[in-house]
């Protein structure tokens, strides 16, 4: 019995050594052509990987993709990463296994998605990114709103309404997310004309927007306007402001249904409306172009508009 155990451990160690000598970064089927895609020329299948469906913006984006795909007789396979970068990499692998012809990815994080884009490249599946792009791999087309311009529009609106040097609070999105950086950058481009008394992150979340705004209201006796990097935070901030009984102008970003309703009810003052459904449509149209052998633009700016009523 003891000898058997010894033999087993010797085998195990031997296996270990041999395996370690056989390590490589080359996997099976890599560098080859797409192994299992059903690439009949008439039926096109698009894979859509969404960062989260727990946010009306991305739901609208998904619906835009579905509507445009249905209109063109294209199949869509949809996976939801639930804001988890690791899950998204798995999701994309699963879509590739399912044999999609073109991938539309709305990344949770531009750095983390790079390896997934690379595996799509290795299988010869073209990638379109939506709203956020990828730091690595080859992306055919990146479709996003011009967030910097949107941030500037919001700042300009405050200046137009309240005059220069109005005291303003900025509610930032998830730190480091490209939307946060770009909207903040646009807004701060005009910051010289404004008096920004607080800039804090509420992670694009309505509940956090409420809490952060409550805290800021405690600390700041004089606030004339709030610019939130998305509508969810703006709506949270609005709740905090209403509860405090103060009169503060709230400007959001995205233009989701709740925010538009709030604006028409006299709650929020304005939102820089993205058109996620249009972004979804653009993505499917781009996919069709790729499918037909055309070369689409490398970057497409989806239209933005300031909604005030």
């Amino acid at each position, binding site marked *: 019995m003891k000898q058997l155990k010894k033999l087993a451990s010797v085998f195990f160690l031997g296996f270990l050594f041999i*395996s370690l000598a056989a390590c490589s970064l080359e996997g099976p089927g890599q560098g080859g052509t797409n192994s299992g895609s059903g690439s009949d020329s008439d039926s096109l299948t698009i894979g859509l990987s969404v960062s989260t469906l727990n946010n009306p913006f991305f739901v609208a984006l998904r619906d835009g993709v579905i509507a445009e795909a249905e209109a063109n007789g294209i199949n869509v396979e949809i996976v939801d990463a639930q804001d988890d970068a690791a899950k998204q990499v798995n999701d994309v692998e699963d879509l590739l*296994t399912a044999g999609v012809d073109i991938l539309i990815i709305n990344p949770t994080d531009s750095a983390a998605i790079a390896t997934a884009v690379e595996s799509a490249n290795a299988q010869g599946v073209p990638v379109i990114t939506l709203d956020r792009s990828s730091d690595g791999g080859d992306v055919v087309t990146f479709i996003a709103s011009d967030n910097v311009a949107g941030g500037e529009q919001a700042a300009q609106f405050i200046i137009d309404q309240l005059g220069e040097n109005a005291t303003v609070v900025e509610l930032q999105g998830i730190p480091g997310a490209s939307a946060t950086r770009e909207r903040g950058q646009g807004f701060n481009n005009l910051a010289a004309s404004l008096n920004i008394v607080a800039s804090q992150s509420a992670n694009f979340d309505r509940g956090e927007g409420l809490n952060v705004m409550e805290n800021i209201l405690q600390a700041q006796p004089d606030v004339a306007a709030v610019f939130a990097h998305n509508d969810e935070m703006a709506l949270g901030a609005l709740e905090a402001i209403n509860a405090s009984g103060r009169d503060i102008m709230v400007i959001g970003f995205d233009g989701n249904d709740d925010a538009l309703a709030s604006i028409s009810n006299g709650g929020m003052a304005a939102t820089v409306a993205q058109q996620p459904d249009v972004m979804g449509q653009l993505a499917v149209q781009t996919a069709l172009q790729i499918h037909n052998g055309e070369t689409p633009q490398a970057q497409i700016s989806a239209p933005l508009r300031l909604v005030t009523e």
Partner: protein
Amino acid sequence: MQATKTKNSLPSVLKNLGPLVGLIVLVVFISILNPRFIQSQNILNLLRQVSINALIAFGMTFVILTGGIDLSVGATLALSSALSAGLMVSGVPAIVAILAGIALGALLGAVNGLLITVGKMAPFIATLATMTLFRGLTLVYTDGNPITGLGDSVLFQMMGRGYVFGFIPFPVFIVLITFVGLFVLLHKTPFGRKTYAIGGNEKASFISGIKVDRMKLIIYSLSGALSALAGIILSSRLNSAQPNAGNAFELDAIAAVVLGGTSLTGGKGKILGTLIGVLIIGVLNNGLNLLGVSSFYQQVVKGVVILIAVLLDRKN
């Protein structure tokens, strides 16, 4: 219990096989609905996808066997992978950075162990607090930004993206070795017997001379180190360390342990069961994606499967 000893053999076999039968049923069912599922490439993908949860769940198995719980594994993963990524960015050799990350994971686990033994805190509360603490420290350290530019060390790239023999994903290989090591530790050594003894009856183990506190300290450190190892695989797969990496990973790990038939009250369970539990969760994630099931229904299905598993366990 003792009276049914002769009758016990068949049901107990069934009970041990329960999770395995569940796994096989799932695999057959999904393969029939979508034959792509059973393709070797997909199976290898699936195994790589589950390897992170597997490592965390292995550690969690030891913790739960002692009657404890470790909610801080996801945050430990994030903090230790952020540290090793930070070291790599500043030019430290990958091997040193990886070992430092694992050492930090063990240290964070030891903090849990000390709070639970010396601080006499309930494991749930202690690790709930450290979960928040470690997550906060991760955000402070990373300033909320992902850490990128981890260099081109082959070793680091191997951790998440490499292959052994050209087809076994390297993370799967790590899981395999870890599993063999932990299986021997749990079922063939005094350490393992003491682990079961503490979970079965802590007072009796203490009286019979088992150094309960020391055992717990080692086990929570093990859980931390395994989480850190999982974190390094994750950051290699993502080619970056994410500040919110590992969010809610503790729940998947606990679910895997429970699916594998380990009792949350401690003292009963097997690490092989945990491996099967991990595979069940992985097959569900991967298979439901391949079947094109909406992500909302996927969560419903996962919840129902866990409930069924626990109910069956209760009946037995």
